[in-house]
């Protein structure tokens, strides 16, 4: 079960380093590394040793993950709940993308220009809208966790990113690998994989 947790977490994160996988799974770093090594021996994950490298799934790993996740969903009998949550998520997703764009870009006379983050009032409004979106996203995470417990990590991860932004580290909205946007995108990827929907 933990093997699927690590495998599937990495699947949704794409390519990343050990620390990020550990943070996302909630396991300790040695524990996570041990699982990754087991998975690598089984040919399901691989480590690319370059400055831009990290851990990622092999094609066999992706196939195994898709199969295991499908089996898990079927066994839980929670397909309707997950599908419903996905529908709600899709309604919120354009808003999240709008907010990320608003964080990075700010139109001047209808023409998008890079947001230089010198207008604290504007950035504050973006943060307020993130908070509002998060309030409406929370029930989605809750329903998903009820349906499949492994979704339980998203709520605290999203909340942590938002809390860091609210504490002044605004880059945690959309500029880091642990940002609200990054976690949100993993949740999106997770829903697609879980429901077997091609991207």
């Amino acid at each position, binding site marked *: 079960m933990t093997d699927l947790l690590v495998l599937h977490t990495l699947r*949704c*994160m*794409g*390519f*990343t380093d050990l620390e990020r996988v550990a943070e996302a799974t909630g396991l300790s770093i040695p524990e996570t590394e041990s699982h990754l090594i087991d998975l690598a021996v089984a040919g399901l994950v691989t480590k*690319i040793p*370059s*400055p*831009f*490298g*990290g851990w*990622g799934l092999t094609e066999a790993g992706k196939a195994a993950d898709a199969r295991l996740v499908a089996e898990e969903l079927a066994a839980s009998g929670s397909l309707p709940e997950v599908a419903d949550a996905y529908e709600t998520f899709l*309604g*919120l*997703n*354009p*808003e999240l*993308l*709008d*907010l*990320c*764009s*608003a964080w*990075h*870009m700010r*139109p*001047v*006379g*209808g*023409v*998008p*220009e*890079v947001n*230089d983050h010198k207008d604290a009032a*504007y950035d504050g*409004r*973006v943060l*307020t*809208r993130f908070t*509002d*979106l998060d309030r*409406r996203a929370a029930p989605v995470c809750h329903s998903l966790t009820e349906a499949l417990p492994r979704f339980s990590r998203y709520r605290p991860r999203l909340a942590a990113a938002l809390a860091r932004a609210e504490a002044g580290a605004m880059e945690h909205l*959309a*500029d*880091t*690998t642990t*940002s609200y*946007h*990054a976690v949100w*995108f*993993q949740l999106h*990827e997770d829903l697609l994989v879980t429901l077997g929907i091609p*991207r």
Partner: protein
Amino acid sequence: MRFIHPLTPTTPPPDPDLVGAKAHGLFTLLNLGFPVPSGFVISTEACRTFLHDGRFPEDLSSELSEALSDLAASAPDRHETGQPYRGAGQPPTVDGPLLVSVRSGAAVSMPGMMNTLLNVVSTALTDLAPPPHAAPSFERASPKVATRGSDKADITDAVSFAETSDSETPDLETSDLADAAGTNAAAGKGDSAVRSAVEAVFSSWNTARAVTYRELHDISHDLGTAVIVQAMVFGDRDRHSGSGVAFSRDPSTGERVVYGDVLFGHQGEDVVSGRFPTRPLIDLAGRESLVWAELVGALELLERHFRDVCHVEFTYESGRLWLLQVRPGGLSGRAAVRAAVEMADEGLIDRRTALNRVTPRQLKAAHTPRIRLDGTVDVVARGVGASPGVATGRIAVTADQAARMAAHGPVILARPHTSPLDMHGLAAAAGIVTTVGGPTSHAAVVARSMGKPSVVSAAAIEVDTTAGCVRTSGRVLTEGTVITIDGLGGEVVLGSPEITTGDTDPHLARLLTWAEEAIDKGTT
């Protein structure tokens, strides 16, 4: 009428607060004698009343019926082109009712935030005799939302098709509206499809995205949107039909040359969907010389009217040009500077106006590095600039390849689109090009967060990961070929062309000289 303003020449044009900015532009076009499809505007006041009372204003119901009857009655006047169909246009396979577009248009531009519905069947025509060549058909006359083009693209961007930037679909499903209209039809209510569409546009003022947009940009929630109802024109009607966007000056450089995109045989929403590669507007000159000449003439006249750069959305149907929208301004950074300086040189505006036209933030953006676009540059594609800056590197067509190749020098990652699975490639690349997806796509958001130049919607490029190459209009660029991208202008260029910064820009230098002179004279 209290709520409805017919689209006819009106001097001065009605207040934009009442009819919205888009309709205000349409009145301007009409006043200047340009061809605009017949129709009418429902005021923002009607929207406010609807949102306040939670139901369709009674006066509006009767006004709407009357306006639709008038529209239907005026439609046969359009027969001067000799086309055997009613109204401004009809798809070749439908001979019966008039089809209308129902578009949102607030006083303040809110691109992509509200709904627009196309091909709504106006049932007012069911009372009228069908045209002589048409077989009577009750089925056709029943209210419904035609779904030509079939998918959700039929309900597209709210403000304009040129501003559609988001690949996400709007809230309203075609089928919802069809159901609502169908129910009304069963109840025997006329005009129900148009009415449902108007209600849908009114309601879209309060979608979560629209609310967020207004919060972010300090726009009052009380304004409401106007609704523009016009006879449809069909850019996909025949081989002498098409749609496009045209700028009076190149929006990327500010140079005084008509610039734009055209899509032959397609509707307007296809121009910006990214699903079809557009052609440079100049191709229209060889294919429809009369339409081209009329369009160029219109842009010239509109520049003189607005004393500013402007752009129009147009559709031409069976060789006949229709203007669907006009907007002044809309240039960024150095393009805005060049246009302002040259318009002053041409005597279109004075130097003081030129100085006032360029905002401090445009001035700042004028320092963004750009590709110097002279005649020698080989532009392989022009997409949408999603993250400003210039990057040069070797093409990689997968994230894995990008990560590998980046160890030996800068890489440009070219993908149809990206997902979190491409993160290592995005991190490794110096710049990112995608062929589908707009400025809010994953690739665009990630590129901006990493401060890397990015071009999206470069639809002229096809990424072939199997063959390990990029194809574009008959050419093959294999992986490893050096290209340069401009994340402001959206250009994808072969090789490593000269790059300019604001410091060496002659137009910026002149504008700054004028500013100093104005300060010396104490005129600012």
